[in-house]
């Protein structure tokens, strides 16, 4: 069963030299309960695609549907609670980490108040250290803020998580632990669509890989098939290049 279905999506923004295409005729389905990883060179349209899925942006052409209903039929607030987006740059509201974690609840009085047990669970799922909950959120490191913002999104019990480079500021062990948490969420039928430049992480945790370049979806396949490609084409060379970069960084 598909969570999202996108048909012939196009999106462009005004540029200095006429319209600049961000997405060009993208047609793709995201199956429910899987971890989908969007990979590819920077500027390929990955974040632009994520932003369409909870209506932070709208396509110029094409249709997007969630759970079988066109996105236009969803009340935006309801959709954004169901489809949570966590941007790469975490935004922290004034207050402690706990205040931030519970921030979204003020917009949804129908959600049962979060008790201590639920707080602990959210911290565990997002790999956020519970002993930092009383600390001013602005004093946290970027990596801690990223995980706090993920916990804040999980607090609303979304069905879909859209994550823009969730592990970009994390060390390898923490990123791997986060990957295992996300796999755990998938087993609870949460659909995860994320952007990552860390192919090692993607190989370890993703079910599906989507390769995007120049605003086009070039390939969608199971993770195993993606990483078993040779170096004879553009995508194979991209994978080899990323591995080499990782080797040099290490």
């Amino acid at each position, binding site marked *: 069963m598909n969570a999202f279905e996108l048909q012939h999506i196009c999106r462009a*923004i005004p540029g200095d030299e006429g319209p600049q295409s961000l997405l060009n005729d993208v047609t793709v389905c995201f199956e429910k309960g899987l971890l989908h990883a969007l990979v590819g060179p920077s500027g390929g349209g990955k974040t632009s695609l994520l932003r369409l899925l*909870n*209506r*932070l*942006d*709208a396509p110029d052409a094409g249709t997007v549907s969630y759970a079988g209903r066109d996105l*236009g039929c969803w009340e*935006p*607030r*309801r959709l*954004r*609670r169901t489809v*949570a*987006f*966590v*941007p790469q*740059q975490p*935004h922290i*509201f004034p207050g402690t980490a706990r205040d931030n974690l519970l*921030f*979204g609840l*003020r*917009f*949804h009085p129908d959600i049962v108040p979060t008790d201590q047990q639920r707080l602990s669970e959210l911290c565990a799922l997002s790999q956020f250290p519970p002993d930092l909950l009383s600390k001013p959120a602005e004093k946290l490191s970027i990596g801690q803020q990223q995980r706090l*913002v993920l916990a*804040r*999104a999980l607090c*609303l019990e979304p069905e879909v998580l859209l994550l823009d480079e969730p592990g970009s500021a994390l060390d390898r062990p923490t990123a791997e632990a986060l990957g295992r948490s996300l796999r755990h969420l998938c087993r609870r039928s949460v659909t995860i669509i994320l952007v990552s430049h860390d192919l090692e992480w993607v190989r370890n945790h993703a079910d599906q890989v989507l390769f995007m370049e120049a605003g086009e979806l070039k390939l969608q396949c199971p993770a195993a098939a993606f990483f078993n490609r040779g170096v004879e084409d553009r995508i194979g060379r991209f994978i080899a290049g990323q591995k080499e970069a990782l080797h040099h960084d290490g």
Partner: protein
Amino acid sequence: MTGDLLQLNMADLGLAYGLVLLSAALVRWQGYGGSGGLLRASLRMVVQLLAVGYLLEGVFALRHPLAVAAILAVMGLFALQVIGSRVQDKMPYFYRVMAGALLVGCGLVTWFFCVGVVGVEPWYEPRYLIPLAGMIVGNSMNGAALAAERLAVQIRRGGAEIEAALCLGASPRQAVAPLLGSSFRAAMIPATNTMAAMGIVALPGMMTGQILSGTAPIIAVRYQIAIMCAITGAVALTTLLILHIGYRSYFTADQRLKS
């Protein structure tokens, strides 16, 4: 009481203008520059005030509602032009939002003040309506410009904060609530400061004018208190309207922040 008023003739005005000439000469002698601008601005002030004086003489003698309405319309258009020139970062539908807020905010307060508080008969009596509307519109114009500028800057800089709240299921109103609050406070600063300093740091212009023209100080004070209340109310109402209507212009119908 007006019999006590010392009249100023053209020679007296010339003598007063000598202070401007002296200032310009001092500025020029010191080589600071700007003496030309000072003279131009002072000449413009003289011409504008004399023109308004003769115009008001005519309108006061005419006592016709259409003539008063025309004066108020010109006043409003000029206020719009001033706001437009002051605000660099204009919100979508800027002039429509400003015109609507000024019309409703200043219009309601001026009407209430003239008819309800002062008891002007008839309601369009130009001797009361025009100067009172002028003070109310002038002060609201400052508040409107401050509110519009602050809101635009904050929304442009606070895109990440607004989208973070939207992503958590906030409505656009909820997402910009902190920005609306700080914009409102900024817009009210001049009116609040003026009230706090009134009577101690300086005697307000209207009160001074009334006292000079022979009105008893306590009567002038009552008028000043009443007009300050009206100004505060008009600035607050106009600002609230601008913020309430204005923030919506930054969002699409499906609750996206416009790029």
